């Protein structure tokens, strides 16, 4: 099987950068979300469409990022 329709984009979630990487494999879309800096994975989902996969991955990433506290330096 070959991955197809590869895409990569970065969105802003409450001041955090999130990278969405999406591709189609065997008829389904796979999407991961990472936090760009440093690049740790936040979500990995599979869905029927690219839009659904991105939306689900973004929802998981948003929920996790919402728990991140910024501390005074």
């Amino acid at each position, binding site marked *: *099987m070959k991955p197809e329709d590869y895409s*990569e984009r970065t969105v802003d979630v409450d001041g955090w950068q999130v990278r969405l990487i999406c591709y189609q*494999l065997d008829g389904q879309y*796979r999407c*991961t979300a990472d*936090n760009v800096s*440093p690049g*740790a994975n936040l979500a990995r989902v599979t869905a029927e469409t690219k839009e659904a996969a991105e939306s689900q991955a973004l929802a998981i990433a948003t929920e996790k990022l919402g728990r991140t506290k910024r*501390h005074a*330096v």
Partner: protein
Amino acid sequence: MANYIREEVLVSTDWVAQHAKDAEVRVVEVDVDTAAYEEGHVPGALGWSWRSQLCNTLVRDILSKEQFEKLMNESGIGNGTTVVIYGDSNNWFAAWAFWQMKIYGHADVRLMNGGRKKWISEGRDLETAKTEAHPTTGYHASDPDLSIRAFLPHVQEAQKAGSTVMIDVRSPQEFSGEILAPPGLPETCQRGGHIPGAHSVPWGKACNDDGTFKTYDELLALYGAEGIHAGQPVIAYCRIGERSSHTWFVLKYLLGVEDVKNYDGSWTEWGNLVGAPVEKGASSAAKA
């Protein structure tokens, strides 16, 4: 050509596509999230879990020599096998595996430049069935080479002496103390900040957008600006030692720094240690 000092430790995705199933080659995907491997991997690649197969699960440590030999034998890897490692997160955990294989003296281990992301972005073949290894016996690991691993006492001495360049490869916000773990991950330390005097060089600065390593000249300029040269002792650290094993690989093999150690205790050790000095905000090294 990128003109790295040790170019033989890096292979391209093209090379892997041509040689992945060669008899003397074993390709291994290393992830922290093994769902990535199950989703699809380089045809013929084995999958190692960083969490359960490349760490001692009872003591915070790398594998013992005996555990490492067992993993090699179960993976069908002999002392003469060419092992090519790749993984997600731009090869962070692959670099950890590389570092550990070098600790136990494996001669021919290489990273696939660009890792899993590059392979997929190029639309190359993926296989979902788990690759079954053909176990062997008789793998002989060397005694651990601790010249490439830093333990806490050595880091404390080096920090006080100031003769070693300490490289913190976490994100700028982790370095400053604004956040206590990468965004979205659980906080894993009691104090934020960095080891006093450490230089901030996030690991990703060594990579291009496609995940491949920057050229020798670009890397030399990046790390040279922090006072690093081939003869300068260096200790790299991050949060748990995987991002810093990536930087360790860059410094040791691509730039040829002779004395570079990965401090795998990293911030989850230093940032939880009673009495350890912590610096917040910008580095005193940068202010100096």
